[in-house]
């Protein structure tokens, strides 16, 4: 790298380190070494370093806008034919994603200051969030698969610790376990892919891999397995069917972490998938699987979301659903649409979850059936929810409207089925948010919502800020995408989109809430409700299949180990001890017998020797 580049670019390797340093800075308070004051200084320090990351990121962004994309490369470890490097790709899209990650992390941390006001281990939370943010910032900037994998695993670890933040609660214990294990399955599969690529292609730089995959013809089986391994990691990270289980349970964690998880963490997973996208061309099977997974997640997630009675879960399943659409876009080689969708989804979902967090913080309740009538008394929260929901659905001309429009237009002729999937998902999402809105913000107050003042400014300010950002999303998108422009779709597409959104809105506002959300007496409807409410019984299927399989295998191995392997050892010992004991009893004590035995043995020995020799 020449020295003429601006300092901000030369030092861009610092950007992920800001987050990690935030973790280290929080340690004295998290570990309880400093007890004189509360844990607040840790939070302030983290906010400061995150602010630094945002500022540094925007400086780099300005420099890159002026100079064009840059690449930064540092050797990390090399041995024989292996060369592992730390690489940063400072392209506009990566930096935009970085700004998204660090910016949302910043507002999320401010929000957390209000939300976790009375939390005694605030410092631990900030240490984990710092770790989280550092890993995410690295993932989006990474220019090689090794580093991406490295940081994705760190994300898995920090997700585990953040979900398990309130580790004394029984539900949190299982939630953290499931979050870690599901993601870990994806990660191990991805590791298999990474190791294979490293062995086959040599370099793990994305650019080298693209060139390699374009020139190399691989055996069909190898290519298929490789493709599947590469999509497994992002699948786990983005909570796609069938590895979506963790996102639902992760809602047991503190809400500020949920904000980040539902907006930027899943974005990181999708960004990694975007980066490996050109490699997937080697395997048609992987593309098909990606399409299937995306479609099932999009529709399934939207349907499951509708039948949830938990406020956070109703919103988190829609994350699965939207990331499913992103997966479809990536599988159909539409990276730009995927990026726009990710961008608009992340912002809108963040404000939605902030609003949800405000509701929970005020009412200490996240059960939809016990909420109601908040609209008039919590204006900022209500606005936040409305803006978030509007930004997520293709009805008003906010972020997702334009992204969906481009996607439907792009797919309409080539893959009409997937265009229909987008429209249906849009309709279902509109339905879901409408009914949640009615349940929470409209109607009459319930016992738990009698006294509901608006949240304090530490929560309201970030919420309103992000809401404004959602409102101006289309302008930003228009600036990013000058050609062909975000409005490059026909009026038919726009009408279809608005139609699907309106249909969802109508159904959502007409469904009778009281009876609809209790279990129906009619059997077919009840079975369907249960199926969706229990998430297609995914956890039970897991427990009956893979968990039972591994547990059974472990038990069999243990029994085999104790009875056969160890038993054999003990038996040999017992036999030798037993024979010694019985021989001991055979001792007569008479000299003649001993002499006779010795003589007989000598005769036998000599005899056998002469027989052998002769």
């Amino acid at each position, binding site marked *: 790298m020449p020295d003429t580049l601006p300092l901000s670019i030369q030092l861009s390797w610092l950007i992920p380190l800001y987050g990690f340093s935030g973790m280290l800075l929080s340690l004295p308070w998290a*570990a*309880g070494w400093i007890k004189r004051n509360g844990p607040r200084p840790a939070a302030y320090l983290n906010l400061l370093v995150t602010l630094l990351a945002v500022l540094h990121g925007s400086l780099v962004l300005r420099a890159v806008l002026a100079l064009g994309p840059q690449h930064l490369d540092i050797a*990390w*470890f*090399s*041995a*024989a*034919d*292996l060369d592992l490097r730390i690489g940063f790709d400072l392209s506009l899209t990566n930096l935009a994603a970085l700004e998204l990650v660090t910016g949302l992390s910043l507002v999320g941390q401010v929000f957390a200051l209000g939300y976790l006001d009375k939390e*005694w*281990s605030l410092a631990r939370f900030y240490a984990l969030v710092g770790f989280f943010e550092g890993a995410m910032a690295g993932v989006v900037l990474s220019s090689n698969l090794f580093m991406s*994998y*490295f*940081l994705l*695993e*760190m994300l898995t*670890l920090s997700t585990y*610790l953040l979900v*398990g933040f309130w*580790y*004394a609660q*029984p539900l*949190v*214990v299982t939630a*953290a*376990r499931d979050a*870690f*294990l599901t993601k*870990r*399955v994806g990660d*191990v599969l991805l*590791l*298999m892919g990474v*190791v*294979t690529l*490293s*062995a*086959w292609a040599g370099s793990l730089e994305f650019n080298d891999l693209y060139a390699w995959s374009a020139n190399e013809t691989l055996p069909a089986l190898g290519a298929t397995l490789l493709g599947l391994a590469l999509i497994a990691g992002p699948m786990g990270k983005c909570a796609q069917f069938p590895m979506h289980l963790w996102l639902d349970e992760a809602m047991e964690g503190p809400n500020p972490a949920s904000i980040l998880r539902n907006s930027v963490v899943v974005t990181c997973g999708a960004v990694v998938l975007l980066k490996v996208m050109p490699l997937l061309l080697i395997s048609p099977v992987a593309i098909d699987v990606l399409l299937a997974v995306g479609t099932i997640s999009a529709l399934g997630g939207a349907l499951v979301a509708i039948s949830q009675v938990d406020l956070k879960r109703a919103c988190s399943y829609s994350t699965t659903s939207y990331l499913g659409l992103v997966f479809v876009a990536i599988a159909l080689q539409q990276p730009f649409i995927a990026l726009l969708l990710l961008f608009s989804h992340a912002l809108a979902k963040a404000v939605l979850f902030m609003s949800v967090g405000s509701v929970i913080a005020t009412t200490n309740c996240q059960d939809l059936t016990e909420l109601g009538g908040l609209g008039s008394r919590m204006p900022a929260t209500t606005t936040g929810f409305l803006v978030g929901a509007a930004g997520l659905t293709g009805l008003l001309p906010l972020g997702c409207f334009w992204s969906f429009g481009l996607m439907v237009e792009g797919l309409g002729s080539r893959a009409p089925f997937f265009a229909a999937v987008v429209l249906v998902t849009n309709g279902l999402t509109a339905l879901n948010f409408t009914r949640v809105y009615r349940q929470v913000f409209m109607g009459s107050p319930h016992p738990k919502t009698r006294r509901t003042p608006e949240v304090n400014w530490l929560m309201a300010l970030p919420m309103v800020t992000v809401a404004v950002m959602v409102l101006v999303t289309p302008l930003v998108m228009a600036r990013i995408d000058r050609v062909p422009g975000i409005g490059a779709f026909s009026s038919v597409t726009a009408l279809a989109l608005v139609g699907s959104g309106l249909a969802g809105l109508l159904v959502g506002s007409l469904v009778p809430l009281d009876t609809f959300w209790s279990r129906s007496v009619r059997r077919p409807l009840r079975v369907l409700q249960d199926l969706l409410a229990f998430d297609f019984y995914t956890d039970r299927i897991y427990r009956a299949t893979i968990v039972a399989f*591994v*547990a059974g*295998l*472990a*038990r069999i*191995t*243990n029994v085999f*180990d104790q009875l056969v*392997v*160890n038993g054999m*050892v003990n038996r040999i*010992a017992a036999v030798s001890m037993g024979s010694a004991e019985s021989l001991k009893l055979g001792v007569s004590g008479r000299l003649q017998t001993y002499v006779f035995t010795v003589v007989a043995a000598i005769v036998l020995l000599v005899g056998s020797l002469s027989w052998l020799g002769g």
Partner: protein
Amino acid sequence: MLSALLLIPFFGALGLLCWPGELATERIRRAALALLGLQLLWSLRVLLAFDPGQAGLQLQESFAWVDSIGLDYRLGVDGLAMPLVLVNAALTLVSGICTRDLSQRPRLYFALLLTISGAVNGAFLSENLLLFFLFYELELIPLWLLISIWGGANRGYAATKFLIFTAVSGVLILGAFLGLSLFTGQADFSINPVTTAQLGMGTQLALLGALLIGFAIKIPLVPFHTWLPDAHTEASTPVSVLLAGVLLKLGTYGLLRFCLGMFPEAWALLAPWLAGWAAVSVLYGSLAAIAQRDMKRMVAYSSVGHMGYILLAAAAATPVSMLGAVFQMVSHGLISALLFLLVGVVYRKTRTRDLEVLRGLLNPERGLPFTGTLMILGVMASAGMPGMAGFISEFLVFRGSLAAFPVATLLCMVGSGLTAVYFLLLVNRAFFGRLAVTPPSGDAVADSRLEVRLPAVALRETLPALALASGVVGLGVLPWGLGKLSEQATTAMAQLPALVAAIQGGGLLS
């Protein structure tokens, strides 16, 4: 220079035993720690004198000892032995530090500890087969005594099992060494792959087989592993640290130095089977670990699984995988020592290691929060989480072995996934949830009372664990130091089969 690494612990042990008059336990401990610290400093001095640019043995010392039977006192160090010598010095010091509340015979205890450390140094540094064997056996008796005097309730059984298994291992190794000299007709017992290449393949395979089983018992590999969980369960914490961190490495060191190093041709022939054996060992160890209730047994079985990676790496014998083997030896030494230390803390504070009983130990005021934090770090490192030593080791092993043995490598990676399963279960069961150190009584009201208050863990008790944890993280973030130290030696070892074949084919000797 290298002899000092033997003289310090051996004379130290002798001095401790023969010091006239009564000595307080604390003074003996201080003296032993000073000696161990000196040993660590001297190891670091050796490291400074060591030139990582050379592949062969360095800093050699030799004098004829019992010339008639080919037993020479010859020491040397290379990139394979150097990191292990450091690990030995560091972990013996750690296990000395974490020895507290000795019930009896402190003099003997610390003398045995020093003897083991010296013998292990000797084994890593020997350049002569018989000398290696002497040190290999020398470490056996002190460890047996350490388990059978200061062990748990069932210590007699475990110690005897350990003794018999390891003695058989020693017999097999000695037999192979003697057989080698018998068949080649040379009695010089130096480590030399070219001499063995003169033998017929059948003889080579027989000798290699004996050596393999001998070292497989020590490592241990399935099905010769049953002594390990028992020995660990009964041994006290410092002894477990030493056993897992240092003594198992004798087996893997022997595997690399003697099996692969002396029989490269026969090794290449057996390699596919060895890779399969490695995969079986990894999966078996991991699955058995899932089913354990005792934390210590779980960690012990995880050792069985993780040592399988080294066999896989050695079977593939590529430069990257061999470096991975060294990394895995070092990182397993640090990580398993850390885990045993922490389990030891839990046991000392709660008097139980039962995963069905322990709950919620992370509790900030009444539990063991700091120990729990380090435990999470340790199990994550063991599960191969990036940023810690386990990841880079496993990555190197897998990356180096994949091209040679794809199926075995992928199976081993599944084993790495299973590691996450059982260690996560350990953390989740024992450290998450509501604090309890007694089994649930069935009475909800009684169980919900938070009466437990575990004694606080003093900083000096966690200091050794903290040091190991920072080593684990340090090696994971900055692996190039160890890479540089060992790369020349491991690359040279990986090229041995080709070298021997070239010598045979090209007739360089004739």
